[in-house]
Structure formats: C-alpha cells, structure tokens
C-alpha cells in the first residue's frame, strides 16, 4: 500500500524586542547566568507582570506577514505546570483568544500551508547540568516568544523545508526575529502521522521535539515517517506520544516524564488586562511592513526580467535585496547588477550570518557606478568583473582602478582609426574575408584588441570592421 505523510508544525520564534515581555530586563542572548533577571522575571512574590506593547506589535507584524486576521480583543492566560526552569510554576501564554488567526504561507508548488494561530507567550529559563548538580539560568526566562501553529497541511519533507525557510525569511524581513535555530531563537515541534494515500482520515500522530536545524527536521521527519509505516505494515498501531530526535543516531525516542498526561489548568491571568488592538493600529502596522520576500521576488521577475532562480537568491535575505535595489538605481540593465552580486560578491560572503548582515566592502553606489560604465561602453564586461574583484579587496571605487591601470574604454573615433590600421596592414585577411572566410575577421579583431591593449569592446570592433570592409 502507498502511504502519505501528514504533518503540522508548531514553531516558537523568539522576538527581538530589546526588553523582556513582562519586565525591563534585556533579551540579549548569552551573558553570565542569571544576570539578565529581575524580581519580575524570576517570579518573586508580590511582583506583577506588565505587558511590553512592542511584543504585541511584533506579533501583529508576524501575523500580517503571514496573512492572519488580527484579534481586536485578546487576553493572556496562565498555563500551570511545575518545572524548575519556570519560576512562577506557570507560563503566561494565550489559550483560547490568540492575537492572530487563520493565516497561511504559500509554497512554490502553489499549496498554502494554513496557519491556525499565532499567540504570544514567555520563554522559560534553562537548566544547566554541571558538577553532578542541576543549576537554573533564568536569563532566557521572560523573553517574548510567538508560537506559530499550522494545520496538518504538510505532505512532504520538501514542503516542510520550504515552509521553515520561508518562515525564517519572513520573520527576518520584517525584523521581528533573527530566527537562529542553533541559538534556539527558532524552535520547531513537528506533528507527524501517516495514512493510506487518498484517505481523508488522520492517523494517530506523534510529536517530535529537539531539532536544531532544518536538516535535522527533515531527517527526523523521514525517519519518523518510515518508522510509522513499518509499525502499520507490521500490523501494529502508532502510539500517540512525544518523541525526542537524536541527531547522532538519527532516530527518535520516546520522551516520558515531563509531558505525561499534563493538565495545564489554563485560566485567565488576573494580573493582566485585556489586549485591545484598534483597526487603525493594525492598518498602521500593515503600512509600515517592508515589501515581503514573495512579492519582491515576483516583482524582480516581472519588472527586471530576472530569472526566477536569481530573483529568489537576491530576495532570500532582506539586506541583499536592499543592496540590489540601491545598486540598480538609474541603470538600464539590472541583470548585470544581479550577475555581479550572485557571481562575484556572494563568493565573498559564505555563511548564512554574513549573508544576513551583507556587510560587503563595495557599496551599492560603487557597484552602480561600475555597471553604469559598462552601459556607457566605457569598460568591457570581463574587465569590469576583474575590477570588481579589486574593489572587493580594497573597498575603493572603480574609478581608482580604471585610472591606475588604464582600463578606460575606447571612444568611437579611436576605434575607427584602429580598425582602419588593422585593415590596411592585413590585406590578405581582408581578401579572405571577402572571399567568404568568416574566420579571417578574427585575426583583424585580434589586431585591434592588441592595439587597444584589450580595452576595446569586441562586439563594437567586429561591427566596425565589417562596416569598413564593405
């Protein structure tokens, strides 16, 4: 029998607000244990939470960027459970009135992954095991999170990969999170079930946690899919449980204990007031959002006639696309700029982090200047490429190198003179060409290029030679 994968995602994204969700402590990653804390975020008796309005704004931005409806009235609830990393023994979250609902992210195959809800909540601290003891670091406690919950809409690991990449890309574009899985600022829990292909029913699902990269998510899903198919093929039943993914062995194993049959006893947090969001505020936030990557990519293809692949590479990181937008100002041929960025500049920025910040030595204005010279036929394409490398080494403008090594182009009258010289000194080649030997033109071309020390534009020389011979 053929089986189908059915999967849904719950993704926690840490918001990059300056301060925590209910107090004024910094949200910075790292730091000596328990130095980013105060009486509120370590839950001392008598302290009260005060909601950071920036968190609401960021969550609304995330909601709008994923096509969600924004609730006018939302509230915060307590999720009660006892664990040493949770100082109040409850997590403040949103249970039945989330801020954002009913959104979607569209994949390249046209399918829409529906987003059930996005809600805000606080992060927990971290347990540190050392010297045979357990310690708690509350630095991360109270850092704002959004949890993005999808419907079980994934049918393949490719779709899952694309979704996570797109989500990361969108959150980074709108600037609400850096979404670094390694640092834990983006964490995915994946629900998986299998069913016979064509069936409408959902099978029993398992939930996988503890994956810290997209590759691991894909590997864990593949493993878990195979495992469930094997169980069913062998006549068994999949048990609903929470699994931990083990990177080293590429297997999943049951995670008992903490999650066993928890009753969170949700109830509205009496210390916090209702979150009201006016329609006007939502519209203002909508207007303030930058052009989203999918829209931008489509525009690059339509407006600048870039290949889909190139447009996708340029829009993957917001800074890269902004660099491109800046560099093409006033140019006729954005494709040249795109080629230079993808072909030359990308080779210098290898890591994800570097591409994200895209802090390259050549400014967009300098690149613009260089491409303008090509368009004005002042410099040849391949020489421009070499110049760009030098610019990338030094951070200097192209003018410096063109002056230094005399790479300036050849103007029309000089070109004509050089072509005449070549024709005059090579009567045989001229005769051969006239006799139908196309190749003879190449030796004339070579002669002109020699005279110009490589500065002349080969296409222009060819045209001029043909014109003169006739």
């Amino acid at each position, binding site marked *: 029998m053929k089986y189908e994968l059915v999967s849904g995602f719950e993704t926690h994204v840490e918001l990059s607000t300056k301060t925590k969700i209910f107090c004024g402590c910094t949200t910075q990653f790292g730091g000596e244990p328990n130095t980013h804390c105060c009486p509120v975020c*370590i*839950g*001392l*008796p008598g302290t*009260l*939470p*005060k*909601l950071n309005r920036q968190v609401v704004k960021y969550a609304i931005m995330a909601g709008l960027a994923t096509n969600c409806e924004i609730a006018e009235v939302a509230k915060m609830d*307590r999720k*009660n459970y*006892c664990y*040493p990393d949770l*100082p*109040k*023994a*409850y997590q403040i979250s949103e249970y039945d009135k989330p801020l954002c609902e009913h959104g979607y992210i569209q994949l390249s195959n046209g399918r829409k992954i529906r987003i059930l809800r996005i809600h805000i909540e606080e992060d927990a601290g971290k347990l540190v095991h050392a010297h045979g003891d*357990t310690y*708690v670091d509350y630095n991360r406690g109270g850092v704002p999170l959004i949890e993005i919950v999808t419907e079980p809409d994934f049918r393949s690991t490719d779709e899952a990969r694309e979704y996570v990449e797109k989500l990361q890309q969108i959150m980074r574009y709108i600037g609400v999170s850096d979404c670094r899985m390694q640092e834990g600022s983006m964490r995915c829990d994946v629900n998986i079930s299998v069913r016979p292909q064509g069936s409408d029913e959902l099978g029993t699902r398992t939930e996988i946690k503890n994956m810290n990269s997209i590759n691991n998510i894909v590997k864990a899903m593949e493993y878990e899919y195979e495992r469930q198919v094997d169980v069913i093929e062998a006549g068994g039943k999949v048990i609903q449980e929470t699994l931990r993914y083990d990177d080293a062995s590429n297997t999943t194993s049951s995670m008992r204990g903490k999650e066993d049959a928890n*009753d969170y*006893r*949700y*109830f509205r947090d*009496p*210390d*916090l*007031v209702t979150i009201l969001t006016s329609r006007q505020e939502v519209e203002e936030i909508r207007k303030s959002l930058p052009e989203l990557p999918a829209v931008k990519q489509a525009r690059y293809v339509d407006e600048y006639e870039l290949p889909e692949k190139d447009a996708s590479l340029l829009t993957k990181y917001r800074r890269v696309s902004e660099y491109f937008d800046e560099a093409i100002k006033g140019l006729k041929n954005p494709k040249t700029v795109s080629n230079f960025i993808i072909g030359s500049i990308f080779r210098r920025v290898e890591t994800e982090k570097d591409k994200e910040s895209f802090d390259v030595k050549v400014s967009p204005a300098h690149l613009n200047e260089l491409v303008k010279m090509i368009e004005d036929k002042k410099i040849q394409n391949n020489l421009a490429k070499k110049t760009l490398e030098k610019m990338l080494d030094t951070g200097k403008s192209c003018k410096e190198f063109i002056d230094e090594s005399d790479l300036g182009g050849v103007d029309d009258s000089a070109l004509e003179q050089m072509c005449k010289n070549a024709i005059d000194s090579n009567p045989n080649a001229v005769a051969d060409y006239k006799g139908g030997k196309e190749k003879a033109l190449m030796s004339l071309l070579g002669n002109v290029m020699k005279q110009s020390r490589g500065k002349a534009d080969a296409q222009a020389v060819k045209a001029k030679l043909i014109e003169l011979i006739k």
Partner: protein
Amino acid sequence: MFDAISDYDPKDSTSQGSKTKTYDTINNDIKGMKVGIAREYLEGIREDVKEAVQNAVKVYESLGAEVVYFDMPAIKYALPVYYIIACAEASSNLGRYDGIRYGFKAEHYNGTHDMMCRTRSEGFGDEVKRRILLGTYVLSAGYYDAYYKKAQNLRGTIVKAFNEAFEQCDFILAPTVPMTAFEMGRAVSDPVETYQTDICTVPVNIAGLPAVSVPCGFDSDGLPIGMQLIGNKFEEAKILNAANAYEKAASQNFKETKWGVKL
C-alpha cells in the same frame, strides 16, 4: 495616606490611576444621601448584630439621609464564587514556592522533583494546602466548566447587581460579620463555618468595590459589632465621608473596650 496608595502604579497593569482625591472632600455633610439596605445582607445574621445595624440606619436618618430598601439575590452566590476564584488563583500563585530561589526548602531530598514535593509538603500549612487542593480541582480539565467558569459567570452577575443597586442609592449599609468574634482556636475545627464568617465581606471583593468597616455597637459580652459602608467604584470619598459623619454622631460606639482596645 489613602490618596497616596490610590495613585497610579506604573508596575501594575490593573492599576486604574488616581480617579479621586479623597481627603479634601470630607465635610460630614450627608444630607439628602441615599443609604441602601439590601435585605439579603440582613438574612441569617445574629439578632444583636442586626439590631446594631438598624440603629445605625436610624442615626443616618437623623442626619438627613434617606433610606432605600431593595433585594440583591445575587449576593448569596458571593461566598462560593469567592472561594472558587480565590483558591484557583492561590493554587497558581503559590506554585512559585518550590524551594529553588527563596523561602523554605526541605532539608533532605532525592533529586529536584522530590525536593519540590517535600518543600511544599513541609512548608505549607493545612489551610494553604486545603485551598491549593480546592483551587487545582476547580481548574482541572473536566471540572473547569462546572466550577471555575460558572464562578466567573456568577461574578459578572454580582457585579451587575451592585451596578443596579448603585442606581438607587449612594452607598450600601450592611453588617461586616454576621456575628461577633469567636473564641481563639475555634476557627481551625470547622473550615466551612469559618468561611461562613466572610459571607458579608466577600461580595465587595468579588465586585471590586470599596468598603469601610465601622464599629456600630457591642454585644452582651462587650464585643464590638461592625457595619460596613459599600461604595460604587472609585467612590471612596463618599463612604469615608459617611463613615466620618457616623463616627461624629454616634461616638458612644467608639469607646474603649474592656480589653483595652480603643475603637
């Protein structure tokens, strides 16, 4: 003092800010004010307490206030509603006493989980444990709708009843406690009976209203009897003014008791 504590607290999101300045408005003039009496407050309370409260009503009449009587059936739900909500919140609020960061910590334990269990078992007293158990129960899946949710709905009903009452009167006069103080040590034996003594005061907590308790006489043992004046939201000035006027007019109730306590 009152004006200072009623000011806006930027660290408390439920803080409403300074909506009244009280001290300057106290002038003892209560002529024409309407004193509300809800019949339910006088049901099931001890005769001498009832009498003392009725005497206070007469004092107000003599000061030129008008007395209006009405029914507030909703307040009979206040006690169970209060204990459900208060215990639910307490069960969650007290979770932070896990022995990790501060406070009592069990001496002997085996691992983190055991440490937390022992800390709570040894650290909390019986009444606290009773309320935690009650609170976790009413919030549990399967019981939430029957208890906690119902209590919250009834809370809304009680708030509404008070809103309607304040359309008819300036403040409500009621006994503070249905009897006078019981002997030391008796409270522990029967928690339900002890909870009953709160029956007159919890409606105010449920509805979020200001109230002031004022001595209004003594029982045959010389124990003081109290009455309370309940005001509408942010109308502390009104009830403090009325309390002050009463104190001036009925000073015999503010003498020193035989235990030496000056009321």
